């Protein structure tokens, strides 16, 4: 099996961006169908499809929708288009090439969960995609697809775009809710979970762009049709964004369960000549790194990667070849998490900085013998001890890099230079 275009079937067609173009390819037909269905039937269909959240955690979408309490309170649907995890850029492709697919998916989802107000929260740096979405939303509003009495069904739903100020933490669902509420973008303590008390303390569903877009083909093809792709527990297709040392980095859609090495070698044209694969970060910078050897066995589904002690995450694959120094890579990653910690929880606030300073010390030739064990201890004590998963996201790369590539770190500490790039001075990108 190779790359397939299921979700992304028409992404290469420029007219797909416009309402007319989208309609030419069957756009908004599924919305019309869905509006004639019982909302619960849609939820059941999404459940049966096995669709799992594409934002990182992989939680079953239909199950999440089922957590909404029946208390008569208004409900909100939030589309998480923050996409700030280093390595992740697949949502951007969808928003740029198929804004109406996202809008259609959101309207169907909003109808299913009985929400009359939906927002797309898009990361601050995504000015281009934001402009495209803005235009698409305006078109849809003008065409009566958003607003009152959609397609004469009696269903009202408003949909708006909200541009964040550019903070990774606003991608965390409760951080996003805080930001949308006009508060400092920082996560909220759970419980209560957003499905029970989210935006404005009302029941709220937060879903990723890709998740919501996938609802359209699920309505079209039914759960069974969707399940034609993927594995039993990881149903459907998924967009993977691949960056790093491959010949053709980019976004590719493959069915879940696809072989990681096939994606690298077939779709991405393999590595640069003469280069050897060293490691892959399979699910965005927070996913534990796997070695070249592990990559051989890896399939791109939630279960296989979990079994390997890492995760599919947002489907952001970062390929690292043997020209890279793992100490440098970790230094960059750690800098990111230190910079992005919201600072609420003490272990994350202090731990991210502490780890970065230790790793920086190593990179600058000031490493100490005990540094690696200390890093592991710090990371261990940051894991599972905070309000949101950013702390884990900062700790996991440290743990996996230091454990799996320990000798490279030890070499650096001992020799005060990189095993890979020798005496070359570390490019001081950050300071």
């Amino acid at each position, binding site marked *: 099996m190779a790359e397939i275009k299921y979700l992304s079937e028409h992404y290469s067609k420029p007219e797909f961006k416009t309402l007319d173009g989208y309609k030419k390819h069957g756009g908004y037909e599924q919305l019309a169908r869905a509006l004639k269905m019982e909302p619960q039937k849609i939820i059941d269909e999404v459940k049966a499809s096995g669709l799992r959240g594409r934002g990182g955690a992989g939680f079953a979408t239909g199950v999440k929708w089922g957590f909404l309490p029946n208390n008569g309170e208004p409900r909100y649907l939030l589309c998480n288009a923050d996409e700030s995890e280093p390595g992740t850029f697949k949502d951007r492709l969808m928003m740029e090439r198929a804004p109406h697919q996202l809008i259609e998916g959101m309207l169907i989802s909003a109808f299913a969960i009985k929400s009359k107000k939906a927002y797309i929260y898009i990361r601050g740096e995504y000015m281009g995609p934001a402009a495209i979405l803005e235009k698409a939303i305006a078109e849809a509003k003008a065409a009566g697809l958003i607003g009152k009495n959609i397609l004469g069904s009696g269903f009202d739903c408003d949909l708006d775009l909200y541009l964040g100020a550019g903070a990774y933490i606003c991608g965390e669902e409760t951080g996003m809710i805080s930001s949308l509420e006009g508060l*400092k973008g920082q996560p909220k303590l759970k419980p209560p979970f957003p499905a029970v008390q989210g935006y404005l303390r009302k029941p709220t569903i937060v879903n990723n762009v890709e998740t919501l877009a996938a609802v359209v083909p699920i309505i079209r093809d039914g759960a069974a049709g969707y399940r034609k792709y993927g594995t039993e527990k990881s149903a459907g297709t998924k967009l993977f964004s691949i960056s790093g040392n491959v010949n053709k980095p980019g976004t590719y859609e493959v069915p879940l369960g696809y072989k990681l090495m096939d994606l690298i070698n077939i779709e991405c044209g393999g590595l640069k000549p003469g280069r050897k694969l060293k490691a892959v970060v399979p699910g965005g910078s927070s996913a534990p790194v796997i070695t070249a050897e592990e990559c051989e066995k890896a399939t791109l589904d939630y279960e296989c990667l979990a079994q390997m002690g890492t995760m599919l995450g947002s489907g952001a694959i970062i390929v690292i070849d043997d020209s890279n120094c793992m100490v440098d890579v970790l230094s960059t990653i750690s800098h990111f998490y230190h910079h992005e910690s*919201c600072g*609420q929880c003490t272990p994350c*606030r202090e731990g991210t900085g502490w780890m970065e300073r230790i790793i920086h010390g190593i990179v600058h030739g000031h490493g100490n013998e005990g540094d690696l064990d200390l890093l592991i201890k710090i990371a261990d004590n940051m894991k599972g001890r905070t309000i949101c998963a950013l702390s884990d996201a900062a700790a996991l790369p440290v743990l996996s890099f230091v454990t799996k590539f320990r000798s490279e770190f030890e070499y650096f500490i001992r020799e005060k230079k990189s095993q890979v790039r020798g005496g070359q001075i570390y490019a001081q990108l950050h300071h």
Partner: protein
Amino acid sequence: MVTITINGKEVEVPEGSTIIEAFYQNKQDIAHYCWHPGLSIAGVCRLCMVEIEGNPRLQIACNTQVMPGMKVNNQSAKVKDAVKWGLDFHLINHPLDCPICDQAGECGLQDQYMKYGQYDSEMGEGKVKKHKVVDLGPRVVLDSERCILCSRCVRFTDEVSKTNELGIFNRGDRAEVGTFDGKPLNNNYSQNVVDICPVGALTSKDFRFRQRVWFLKDAETICTGCSTGCSVKVYHNKEGLFRVKPVYNPAVNGHWMCDQGRDVYKFVNKDARLLDAKVVSGGKTEHMQATELAKRLGTTLKGAGKSVALVLTGAYTVEEYDAILNYFKSEVQTSNVYHWINNPENFDTFDGLLLRGDRNPNTKGLAEALSKNGFNGTWKELTDGISTGSIKTVVVAGPENIALFPDLKAKVSELARAAKLIWLGAAKSADLEALTGDVALLPTKSYVEKSGTFVNHAGLRQTVKRVTTIVPGALSLTEAVAAMKGEDVLAQPKQQAGVASPTVGAGRVNNEFTLTRGVW
């Protein structure tokens, strides 16, 4: 009620309690910084870790509700290690300021370290430096470096004072507490943030650097700043009172008190007080002990009848009112008794939280005592009596805290029109000192120097116990009355010479707080 097991012991706790509340209700120790029973749950310090049987992950006790049959412990090696690490995270960027930190001696960080820490720090990297001595507003100074970002102060201004002046700015380990542009921390409850700050990050301008806490004793009493009657602790030593903090009292003030109440102690200290008794008559001034003056007055007042009037303020205790009213009724034999209401325009106002316009601790007690004795004279009767000369002698049990009596000057000149003015009071007052007529001044005890009962605005009777003596020789109204009746009242020695007493603001250098937020 729900039965759970805490550290192996079965206990019953109310349904819906959090685990940390269950620990507290059952007097079990648990580390924490960000949780405060009077504020919402933040769950950020991550120190209140507990192990729950059947749960592989440690949980925070402050945001986890009890469930029937739950078995929790915070004594396992796993929890202890987590708490130790939690502390270490708190300490890695914390300055070693303790020797100069005003919180030393009552610092949560020191306390927790002694209880749960006691390890060698593994932090070898440089510390993140933050701002020192940031002026947050008229009463509070922030030392950002010591702040552990528990967010209690921010939650206080959001949830209790509802003034929203504070925020945490910036992210990660660059985060700092601060005020919004042009909005200093300036509300009548601002000093509560100093109390709830678990470390020495927020300090009160009034108190900082004036005493080490271990040189102070504390005692519980009631604030006399208004008719709410908040439960408080006063901190004192032989030099006087230094500060006041609220004591939790669910029936009155909850966890808080107002900033004006915190200033009450200042009027108790010697330099604000009437220190000895004196009589001014025929251009001559005579000093004497208060008991002696009281005895002398007793002879002139006995049986003097309706030519004598008594003016009372709401600052005295129920017991004192009983004694003096009884004396005036049966021995002086007058019913000319009048209530001096200090600020009639806003006497009935209330700020919605604690502070009431009636700035007396015992207006209700006074009203009860007056009506019990059938005294209901109006102020006009008094002034008419003075004008016509039917009232010749006015006895005043005056204010303790003259700052709360804006009409003092006017009242003094109004009452001094009587042939003889006998003024019993705790406060030194220039207006009284300036009188040249026939005047007697008798020093009375302040609220921390006597025991008795106050009835607050809601009718709640609260008793206070003597805390200390500030002005030796000053009398309570009860003692003064006893002396007037000729009884022997233990005469106290005159004040010791040479004992300094703290003055409001004395010794503070202007422009002490120089750094402002945003300057690195």
